[in-house]
């Protein structure tokens, strides 16, 4: 929608659409910002109790293999160094790992408790790949024989099936379901609700809460270039214009207009060296990147509406 044929007009209408789509989301954003100021993540839990790690009775013949291992906060580095950044950026509380064995088959249950359901969803969307759900799993999931990736409430869950002899799909699903039975669903608005529906490519939605999540998509600059500060969720998706051209759209609802203005100013002042501004405005700018693909940043109230990788 930011093509050279009619960029300004459509950006204007896009902003209106975004504001409309954000109406429901603002409730979520305000609640999240309020919660963020109220104490450490664990203290904000509203789900009563912590779901138990299942006993080995989820299927016949299985036994616990080793003790439960727990990693809290930054100790996640000790478990998945090089892979911990994404979890920490989204708001990680703790990880529990339990292995189970039956002869040469082995299943490992990994339960990541996140700050919020949105945090868990953010990680899941990054990890799910092309979503291929196993219908027997009692939650949103993306399954492969070797690994099932699941999200429910504030829990991101993985079941690894990497023994010398694979466990059956039914056994892996039984283990997952044994845990999920103790997890309360947390329905309600998510940051993804900020994304306008028109032209959105189904399944392409992602959440961004810092530089690590943004990295595979685009480089606007270094560090926390969008000033998300590990608190603010941006919602990103792939869009298609009626003529078939694709582009990415990232909607970031800041707590207030002052915050979005500060973020825009920071972005302008620290823009990546490979980005060339083609039109500068008080409320945003247009640009081309190193591949001559176009993009734009537009601020309206508390929201930044960013488009990139826009082809002609």
């Amino acid at each position, binding site marked *: 929608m930011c093509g050279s044929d009619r960029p300004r007009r459509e950006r204007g209408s896009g902003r209106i659409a975004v504001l409309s789509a954000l109406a429901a989301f603002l409730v979520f954003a305000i609640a999240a910002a309020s919660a963020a100021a109220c104490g450490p993540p664990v203290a904000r839990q509203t789900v009563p109790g912590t779901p138990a790690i299942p006993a080995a009775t989820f299927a016949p013949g299985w036994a616990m293999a080793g003790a439960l*291992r727990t990693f809290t906060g*930054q*100790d996640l*580095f000790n478990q998945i160094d090089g*892979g911990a*950044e994404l979890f920490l950026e989204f708001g990680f509380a703790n990880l529990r790992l339990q292995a189970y064995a039956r002869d040469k088959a082995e299943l490992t249950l990994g339960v990541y408790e996140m700050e919020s359901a949105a945090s868990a969803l953010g990680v899941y969307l990054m990890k799910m*790949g092309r979503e291929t759900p196993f219908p027997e799993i009692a939650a949103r999931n993306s399954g*492969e024989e070797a690994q099932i990736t699941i999200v429910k409430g504030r829990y991101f869950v993985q079941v690894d099936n990497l023994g010398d002899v694979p466990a059956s799909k039914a056994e892996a699903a039984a283990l997952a379901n044994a845990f999920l039975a103790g997890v309360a669903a947390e329905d309600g608005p998510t940051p993804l609700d900020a994304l306008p529906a028109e032209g959105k490519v189904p399944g392409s939605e992602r959440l961004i809460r810092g530089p690590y999540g943004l990295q595979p998509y685009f480089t606007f600059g270094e560090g926390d270039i969008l000033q998300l500060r590990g608190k603010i969720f941006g919602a990103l998706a792939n869009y298609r214009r009626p003529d078939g051209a694709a582009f990415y759209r990232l909607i970031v609802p800041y707590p207030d207009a002052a915050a979005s203005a500060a973020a825009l100013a920071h972005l302008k002042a620290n823009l990546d060296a*490979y980005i060339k501004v083609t039109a500068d405005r008080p409320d945003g700018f247009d640009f081309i990147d190193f591949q001559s693909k176009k993009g734009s940043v537009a601020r309206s109230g508390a929201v930044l509406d960013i488009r990139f990788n826009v082809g002609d």
Partner: protein
Amino acid sequence: MNKRSYRSMPPDDTVGRRDFLKAGGAIGAGLIMTGRSLVAAQQTQGQQPPAKPAGPPPKPKTNIDEALKIPRTKWSLPGPFPGRVVEVHDPAAMPEGKVDAAVVKAMFEKGIRELTGKSLEKSFGLFFTKKDVVGLKVNPVGPGLISTRLEVVDAVIDWLTAGGLPRKNIVIWDRFDYMLKDAGFTAERYPGIGLEGLQTMDEAAAEGKTEDNSKWLKADGTHVSVPNFDPKVFYWADVEGPKDLPYLNQHVFNGKHSYFGKLLTEKLTKIVNLPVFKNTGNAISMATKNIGYGAVCNTNRLHAPLFLDVCVEVPAFWPVRDKMVLNVTDGLRSQYDGGPDKNAKFAYIDNRLYFASDPFALDMVCHNRIVAKRKEMGVAVNENPRFTEYLRYAERLGLGIADPAKIAHVRV
């Protein structure tokens, strides 16, 4: 087999992990690169970035100049075949997900022959003598899915022993001893072959199960693995390591020095690098990262400010530069996203091995291949030149070839 996840390279910053978290990640993770790479990228690309009213802090100083002062040898990188990368593909290598050792051995022979122009027997002398002590640097992360396949290691060992190298002169090694075992590199599997981790780590203490640090922390406050590292040979960067005990447990030192393992400085005379084909974020974690972050300790602190530059600057030091004669990237099963830890959703059987004496040319070829795979699979990929700038930096240092126009990519 116990499947643990990756532990060797946590992100870090100059104010420590806890401060990083307090800052909400604002400092940025490892791949949010700055300074040297970017400036160099601008020079390489011939693009003039706009002047900036404000910018990131300059990249920390390192002792790379000290490495470059040391005269090269006949074995120095990029080795005898700069810019040459051989890719061998055999669809029969992993039928039903299990490695066919005979096929892999044939692939290995084919790869060496195409790389060197000589038979396995005659090529041995291009890289080794019968008196060498050869270290095989494997990648044991993600065992059961994405670690270096034992059958690839077997093929290398067969080649070396057929060339006259005694088994006792071969050492399979990595940073961590327990990870080797988890990935199947055991004395029972490899009789007569050395197995060495540069360091140990007390997992119970790392997991917070015990406050008893006596298994790894000596009474004088130093790590039990300190003697495994060479105080005279180090990569220095103006970045302090965090001062907490978990960091010290995992990284042996926490100052501004990353010492090379004595295994490399004193025992090994040659190194064969055996990484796997996988990503780390938007970049790759293959040949240069396997050795760059595997040869030294205290790497956590380097991740944020110097991430991919470490993949160039550590190999620029003589224990790697003058000993690492061959790289074979295991792409039998590859992973295009979700790395460096294992992620089955993005792992796929690809039935390929890649061969090069020049690890930078090799990584450039593999980077381009992973970009293509990510596009094919509909995974986002950021093609900003900064993600390969470290390879061009290596070319400027004379360590390898990164310019695709100068790389001979041979497919077999």
